[in-house]
């Protein structure tokens, strides 16, 4: 028995020694990674520590230990605020509209583009379709506003020219149009870019499948339905789960830039709410509570989506 403990102890020592030797051998790898790990810790993880603010009556200038703790007071204020529910409605509405449109449109575009048999044309359309992705939201919002404007906006010009309307529509001044405008702007900007991955997935499908289908007399429409779509299904599911995870993190740039005081009842989203009613008013704790609420919902959605898809399709990202 003594020898047994001795031998396990020996083995343990040996393993420890080997790990230490390995550690020393890999010192350059540690030099090359630890600084960046610390960097990520400071800039990405420390803000999470800032979440404690939401349970305090945070006053700038005081140290962490001098802050007054107030428990869930800020969350109670938040949930009692009627304005919050309006903002939450806007956030969810625009997120889900963006999610659904952003899922379907790029797939359809990739399928259509894949059917273009003239290679030069295919390349041209694809290059053109990336263009808006590289433009900032500041520029994109400017362009959208210009195209929808009442004096000289092309959309109103066309609608007037076709006699569909007799007065130009004030697109940017009507709240109930705002969600649709934001979603369309997003589609305009990102469809080509988001189709890249689907096109790559399509090109990975074996040509022998199409060959066999042709021999069996399947039309091109049938080939799309029975070969191409099932072929990119795993890609579609993974991207869908990822975008559900980012659902509420899709930002506020669009809403900030396209919105104005006339449509604020429809344009204000959680992050803007945190910006306007938290940061701008110096209510840091209250604003942080809004940010936390946003992050928690995102995480719950991510895990839920992942779990559901894992169960039904065996595809997951975790």
């Amino acid at each position, binding site marked *: 028995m003594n020898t047994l403990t001795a031998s396990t102890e020996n083995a343990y020592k040996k393993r420890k020694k080997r790990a230490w030797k390995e550690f020393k051998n890999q010192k*350059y790898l540690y030099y090359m990674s630890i600084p960046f790990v610390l960097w990520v810790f400071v800039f990405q993880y420390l803000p999470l520590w800032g979440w404690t603010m939401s349970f305090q009556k945070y006053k700038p200038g005081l140290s962490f230990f001098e802050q007054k703790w107030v428990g869930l007071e800020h969350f109670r204020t938040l949930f009692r605020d009627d304005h919050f529910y309006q903002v939450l409605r806007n956030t969810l509405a625009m997120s889900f509209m963006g999610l659904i449109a952003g899922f379907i449109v790029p797939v359809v575009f990739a399928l259509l583009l894949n059917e273009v048999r003239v290679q030069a044309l295919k390349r041209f359309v694809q290059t053109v379709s990336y263009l808006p992705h590289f433009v900032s939201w500041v520029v994109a919002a400017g362009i959208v506003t210009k195209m929808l404007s009442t004096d000289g906006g092309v959309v109103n010009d066309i609608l007037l020219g076709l006699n569909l309307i007799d007065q130009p529509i004030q697109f940017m001044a009507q709240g109930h149009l705002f969600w649709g405008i934001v979603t369309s702007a997003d589609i305009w900007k990102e469809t080509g870019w988001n189709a890249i991955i689907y096109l790559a997935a399509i090109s990975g499908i074996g040509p022998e499948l199409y060959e066999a289908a042709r021999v069996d007399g399947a039309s091109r429409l049938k080939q799309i339905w029975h070969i191409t779509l099932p072929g990119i299904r795993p890609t579609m599911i993974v991207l869908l789960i990822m975008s559900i995870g980012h659902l509420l993190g899709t930002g506020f740039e669009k809403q900030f830039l396209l919105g104005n005081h006339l449509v604020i009842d429809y344009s204000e989203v959680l992050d803007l709410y945190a910006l306007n009613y938290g940061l701008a008013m110096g209510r840091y704790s209250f604003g942080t509570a809004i940010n936390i609420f946003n992050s928690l919902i995102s995480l719950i959605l991510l895990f839920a989506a992942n779990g559901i898809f894992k169960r039904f399709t065996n595809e997951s990202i975790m």
Partner: protein
Amino acid sequence: MGVVNRDAPVGRVKQSLQAKAPQDRILEVIVYLSMIVVTILTIYPFLNVLAISFNDSVDTVRGGITIWPRRFTLDNYSLIFTYESLITGFKISFLRTVIGTIAGLISGSMLAYTLARSDFQARKFISIFLAVTMYVTGGLIPGFILMRDLHLIDTFAVYIFPGLVSAFNVFVIRSFIDGLPYALQESAKLDGANDFTIYWRVILPLCKPALATVALFLAVGQWNSWFDTYLFNGSNESLTTLQYELMKILQSTTTSANNSQDAANMAERMTQISPESVKMAITIIVTVPILIVYPFLQKYFVKGMTLGAVKS
């Protein structure tokens, strides 16, 4: 007999092709029509903006400019160069793009190399540590408080520091390194090279396609961002970026209606009088640098996007 067997399926295929032709022809029409629509929807707004930017600003008010200027002029562009804030903005945007891209490339590739080494002890921990940041973020206000506590507000560094290490970019480069033959590293190691030398001399030169992709992501991100300026440096005229200045100019009609106090601000007042054509000229100036670059990097970023999405 062989002849009959060979002919039969071919005959059937021919027949079926002819039988299905109308359906496929409809598909063909839909495909090409939608390509035309997509192209027009994408390009027209840019051509329209371009035409207006070259059109006489007084004439523009009459409306009706499509894709060709009615009264050609370069005045809008020459006027822009008298805007002090835009010149500063251009300098700052250029600087942050160059510095941010180089710094991001070095940090991203170095970290990616260590994560691509399957024998690295901390590999798994660091990968997860990074991946978490793709889904969990502290949010706007904790981020703002952190920048204030680190005394980064009203500094140029606030454009570079927070985004220096991006998990997505690291994963893109790592998947590319994963695809390189390991034998190259082995032989360098036998020659007595340390891990840093292998990274610098062997891996980096081979990574050019992945680095080109990430450089494009970083450069576009840096050039296009305006919100960090708004949040951290908005009141510091010597540190504002081009996008932020454009944002102020484009939003000026709304803000002036929204908040009359803003009119007291000197910069605001200047921008409120910018005519449509001048606004469009600034838009073009801000957009053109990126539009010139991206088509040439297309083959790289298509590959990079695919790699990144598969791995992360």
